[in-house]
């Protein structure tokens, strides 16, 4: 569902771009400093990737390869040459590189009119805030610190490329009918500011301008150098709740929450002084009713000329809904984390109780044996009997203490509801989405549609299923990418002669040895460096508390399948 809302954004922008596309008969201006605008005909955005680490190049290339054409190079000089030769839509660069480092590359790109407006994302292992500031000041659009998540990188790349394309399209549109872009810009500015142009000229620029900004799915605003709105397209009007007229009297700072106003001010200064050609940020804006709208926003400069002031173009994409969904997911994760902690403590207490009661039981037995033998024997000091008796009593006391602790940490009684197993799968795949994407794991959902419902505690089964999914992901971390397939299946079955649901979580990972099968579910047994060895143990406890069974078996070819059978319907107390 999340990916859908994200892709709606992309499609809409592309539609906007498509509507603004240039008829082939019309001539495209190719003055020197507009060469960077040329990649109009290409459908796949091009990304230039500069990093001296081959693994890094491979990883990033793999991440981006589905949506982008990636050109990897090993150092800054090669990157600069490639960018000058054929300006890409985006440059991704490391910081430390031989010949020309990331900062050098950035400065070179920014100083060349042909490459000045290419968005640049720096990837760095240097985490210091200073470095980040240095990067941003040098004019990087984004600065990502390794290790970064695949999702984060993809989001940043996507946003920057969309914004660049939207801006390119806008500028192309402006350039289409006039050989001199600055003249058109002037015309446009003049038409909005002074209304002194001839009706014809005004109409012409208006039409073109509106073609872009009225049909776009993103909010577009024109802002003067003092931060006052000159115009806002219908989307932006709706988004922020002001009419077109009202926008004439609104400044950028009025729609910016106080906390962000200083950043915004300094960004505007950087834009106007030419230190940045554009910037992109995920930010909040204030609606007219003072409510908050989350947005992906970018701002870029339309240079002035012939004595005219430059203007700022602001592009704002509403991501409030996506944020809300993300927040919901975050809540679900928090709830799950809490439940996991609680069950972990409960299970830990139970395991410890079990382990301690074994030796305590032996002590009591042995003490009793001695007492029995002593009872019949002659010449045994009475204190020996007393000491034995105290030993037995104290062992019993220790066991009672353990029982009390265990009772305190006892799992709360599950809240069971009738659920479709498929809904659990959907929930858990959403929860694990990030891990699945990062590890490049394909998911196959083979759950039968007509399964009877199961009567279970939703959060507890999130725990069980998520645990199995994460185990599968971990098991496949070392296998080659094409085999990283996670299959979740579910079918009808019988348990003790009654209808049941049998589900399996299957991976093609490293699997386990035959003699490991019993150990897997033992407390504190783990094969992971970061594991505690309680996951499967807890999962089995939960499943058994629902009158089901959880077990593991190796696959015929490779990997493992974890199986769980649960009674169907409302039974299962």
């Amino acid at each position: 569902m999340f990916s859908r809302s994200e892709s709606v954004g992309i499609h809409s922008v592309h539609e906007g771009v498509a509507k603004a596309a240039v008829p082939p008969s019309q001539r495209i201006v190719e003055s020197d400093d507009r060469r960077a605008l040329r990649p109009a005909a290409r459908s796949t955005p091009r990304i230039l990737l500069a990093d001296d680490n081959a693994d890094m190049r491979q990883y990033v290339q793999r991440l981006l390869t589905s949506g982008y054409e990636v050109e990897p190079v090993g150092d800054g000089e090669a990157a600069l040459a490639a960018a000058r030769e054929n300006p890409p839509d985006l440059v991704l660069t490391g910081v430390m590189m031989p010949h020309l480092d990331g900062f050098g590359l950035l400065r070179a790109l920014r100083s060349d009119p042909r490459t000045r407006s290419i968005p640049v994302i720096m990837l760095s292992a240097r985490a210091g805030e200073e470095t980040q500031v240095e990067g941003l000041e040098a004019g990087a659009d984004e600065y990502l610190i390794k290790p970064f998540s695949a999702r984060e990188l993809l989001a940043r790349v996507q946003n920057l490329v969309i914004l660049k394309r939207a801006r390119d399209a806008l500028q192309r549109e402006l350039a289409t009918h006039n050989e001199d872009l600055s003249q058109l810009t002037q015309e446009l500015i003049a038409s909005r500011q002074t209304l002194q142009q001839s009706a014809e000229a005004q109409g012409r620029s208006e039409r073109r301008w509106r073609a872009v900004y009225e049909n776009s799915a993103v909010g577009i605003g024109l802002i003067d150098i003092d931060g006052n709105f000159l115009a806002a397209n219908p989307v932006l009007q709706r988004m922020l709740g002001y009419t077109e007229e009202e926008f004439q009297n609104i400044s950028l700072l009025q729609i910016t929450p106080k906390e962000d106003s200083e950043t915004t001010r300094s960004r505007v200064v950087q834009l106007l002084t030419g230190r940045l050609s554009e910037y992109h940020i995920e930010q909040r804006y204030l609606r007219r009713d003072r409510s908050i709208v989350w947005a992906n926003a970018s701002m870029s400069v339309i240079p002035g000329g012939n004595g005219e002031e430059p203007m700022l173009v602001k592009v704002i994409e509403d991501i409030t809904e996506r944020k809300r969904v993300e927040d919901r997911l975050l809540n679900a994760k928090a709830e799950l984390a809490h439940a996991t902690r609680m069950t972990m403590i409960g299970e830990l207490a139970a395991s410890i109780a079990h382990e301690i009661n074994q030796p305590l039981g032996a002590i009591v037995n042995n003490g009793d044996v001695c007492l029995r033998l002593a009872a019949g024997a002659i010449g045994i000091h009475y204190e020996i009997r007393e000491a034995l008796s105290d030993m037995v009593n104290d062992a019993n006391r220790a066991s009672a203490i353990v029982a009390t602790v265990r009772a305190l940490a006892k799992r709360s009684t599950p809240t069971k509801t009738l659920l479709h197993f498929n809904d659990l799968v959907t929930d858990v795949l959403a929860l694990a989405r990030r891990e699945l994407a990062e590890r490049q794991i394909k998911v196959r959902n083979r759950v039968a549609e007509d399964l009877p419902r199961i009567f279970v505690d939703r959060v507890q089964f999130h725990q069980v299923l998520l645990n199995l999914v994460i185990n599968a992901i971990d098991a496949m971390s070392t296998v080659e990418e094409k085999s990283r397939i996670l299959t979740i299946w579910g079918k009808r079955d019988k348990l003790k002669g009654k209808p049941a649901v049998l589900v399996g979580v299957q991976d093609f990972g490293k699997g386990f040895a035959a003699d490991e099968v019993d150990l897997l579910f033992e407390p504190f047994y783990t094969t992971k460096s970061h594991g505690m060895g309680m996951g499967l143990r807890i999962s089995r406890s939960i499943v058994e508390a629902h009158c089901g069974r959880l077990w593991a078996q190796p696959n015929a070819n490779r990997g493992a399948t974890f199986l769980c059978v649960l009674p169907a319907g409302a039974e299962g107390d």
Partner: protein
Amino acid sequence: MIERDVDETDSIVIVIDDDLSFRRSTERLIRSVGYSVQSFGTAAEFLRSRIPDVPACVVLDVRLPGLSGLDLQEALPKVGIKVPIIFITAHGDIPMSVQAMKAGAVEFLTKPFRSQDLLDAIELAIAGDRETRKVRARLAGLRARYQLLTAREREVMACVVSGLLNKQIAGELSTAEKTVKFHRGHIMRKMRARSLAALVRMAEHLGIER
């Protein structure tokens, strides 16, 4: 289980627990009151072993590596072993104990338990098993004697225990009354029945109906 002379006083307690130290202490405890004990670390070891055919009971840990205690409880009748079971666990799991008791366990004790509780349970279980064995032995003897009857004698016996008079039986089987009397004498002797009432009880045990 191998055949052996049944000695009324002979009995054995089987302890199955994977914790060596606990197992040893339990063995010691049980032995201290005079029972003989055989112990095992897993259910599989027990199933592979040869146990004397005497009154017995199993002191069984719930959690075992491989086949669990509850699994073993379920499996034993299927391999023809009927023996009373006393469960012991360090876990104190209530649903588990309910399941075990439903499946016919004699007792469910939580470690550490009072040794008297275990010894009482063992006494009860062995007495129970001895009783069951007697009944089983009696029935086996009865079956063996019934096997000695000829097909005709069995027919006559079925008629006799259903309350028919000799004359009626003769009519029923199309034979002479004298022949029926003859068969009847044989039946009483072979079945070692002292009276008609005794024969009727035997027929009930054997499940004979007309």
